[in-house]
């Protein structure tokens, strides 16, 4: 195949990949009430969306879950990555397998098994309706801890141990070596992992769908339930804000990783996740 033809194909693929995003964002600025008929540029629907309690309340819930998830996932994931880096194979391999399983299991399977677990656990401890913000948070941490571990570990192994060895030789203890040498070097990877964990939680639909219970609504759940009544410009505006926020988080994560390691780490994350 000619190079030109391949290039044209690539352009089409990019157009395909970005069309849905462009369409939603563009129509969010439609001044009219009807989604499909353009009536001039306006930002009114952003205002309407932000004044609508049934949108801002789920937004708050999603942000709280996303932040809590990011913090816990960073803690668990970083500790896991450090421990795994020099573990004996017979311990490491099963833990590794477990972490990968959390990422490749179809989400619906995880979603329903988490639902069963929480309801069953509720019966055991005598909580009538355990589902809510906590169960969503716990479930999100499962796969996001693996995401953080993946990124931090790539960085940890990739950066080598020369500086740590030097610190040791100069008499620094394990704790102070970690605090003064290792942690600052890992910080970009941890931050990037946290940003991605936030994004994945903030965007998550399927897991939240099953473990949210009746009283709790995250932003994606809110959007999904409104689709039954047709798409409204306010929903497009909400979607545009979500896209803006997640795009920002992703770009920051990428830049942080890239700057920390002359771009090598940036490509690593691209290859790995």
């Amino acid at each position, binding site marked *: 195949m000619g190079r030109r033809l391949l290039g044209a194909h690539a352009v089409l693929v990019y157009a395909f990949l970005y069309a849905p995003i462009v369409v*939603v964002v563009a129509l969010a600025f439609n001044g009219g009430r009807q989604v499909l*008929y353009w009536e001039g540029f306006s930002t009114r629907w952003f205002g309407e969306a932000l004044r609508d309690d049934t949108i801002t309340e789920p937004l708050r819930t999603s942000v709280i879950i996303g932040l809590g998830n990011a913090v816990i996932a960073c803690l668990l994931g970083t*500790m896991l990555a450090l421990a795994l880096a020099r573990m004996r194979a017979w311990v490491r391999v099963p833990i590794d397998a*477990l972490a990968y*399983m959390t990422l490749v299991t179809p989400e619906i399977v995880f979603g329903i098994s988490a639902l069963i677990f929480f309801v069953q656990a509720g019966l055991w401890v005598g909580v009538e309706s355990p589902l809510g913000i906590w169960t969503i948070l716990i479930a999100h941490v499962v796969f996001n*801890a693996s995401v953080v571990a*993946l990124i931090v570990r790539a960085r940890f192994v990739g950066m080598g141990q020369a500086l740590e060895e030097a610190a040791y030789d100069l008499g620094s203890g394990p704790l102070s070596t970690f605090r003064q040498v290792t942690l600052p070097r890992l910080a970009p990877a941890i931050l990037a992992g946290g940003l991605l964990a936030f994004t994945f939680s903030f*965007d998550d639909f399927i897991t939240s769908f099953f473990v949210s219970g009746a009283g709790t609504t995250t932003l994606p759940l809110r959007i999904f339930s409104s689709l039954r009544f047709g798409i409204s410009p306010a929903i497009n505006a909400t979607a545009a804000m979500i896209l803006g926020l997640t795009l920002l988080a992703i770009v920051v994560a990428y830049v942080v990783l890239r700057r920390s390691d002359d771009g090598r780490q940036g490509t690593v994350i691209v290859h790995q996740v």
Partner: protein
Amino acid sequence: MAVAAPEVAESRGPSSRARGGSGGPRYPGWLALPAVFWYLLFFLGPLGIMASYSFGEISGFSDVKFAWNLENYRYLFDGPLYTDVFKKTLVMATFGTLATLVIGFPFAYYLARHAKHKTLLLLLVIVPFWTSFLIRTYSFLIILDPEFPVSRALRPLGFPEKFELLYTQKAIYIGVVYNYLPLMVLPLYAALERMDWSLVDAAQDLGDSGLRAFRRITLPLVIPGVLAGSLLVFIPLTGEFLIPEILGGGKTLFAGNLIAQQFLEARDWPFGSAIAMVVVGSLTVALLIYARAVGRQEQYG
């Protein structure tokens, strides 16, 4: 939301092997405990409970009695009602895998061999993939509507005024290809990027046709990438639930929809668990076949 390529674990570089000696700090194994605890309690435990549910039965309105029988599985494979759903799921997942391969391969090939600014272009593939699956899917409700402004603008050029795409199988397939394309492109690119193109040039200089050089040199080297990409697309597709729900109008049932239905509407959790177990079981088989195929590749490749 499967996000990881399967071949990630081992990082390269001499430093990773430099253990022992004076060495840097060796982090204690117990640091892994919180995460392992979390995985066991909130991931493996629930999967185990789900497995035992699949052998249970429903009693009363929605209480579950553990019965340890195979009734749910027998019911599932009894008659065409549910086996058809599995067949349709298999067809859909196979179609998605092949279609993303056909579209993704030339794209990845171009990125790896001809493009400048490779990292940026690759990032541009991943960015939409990391934004909301839900939003990108519902956007097709707008795009595939006959009244979509672009379609209306094209009418004078002969674009049909009315067409039925929304809430059909075709709409689902479009959504599938769209959402899973990046998962295919990434491993393909990773494989193609490692290619030594001078080998291809040499073969052509020595008289191979372009096609022959491609078949003899490029293809064998990218097969692992093709396998990895196929797996990354196929696995989540077997449980796909959201795309048919939105673009199919909830009319078309795949395994994922059937599972959701049992849990949210029919409230037959044991039966829903049995369906999920069948999905997980087939995936395990697919993974084992993959592992063997990759093993063979490494042996002879």
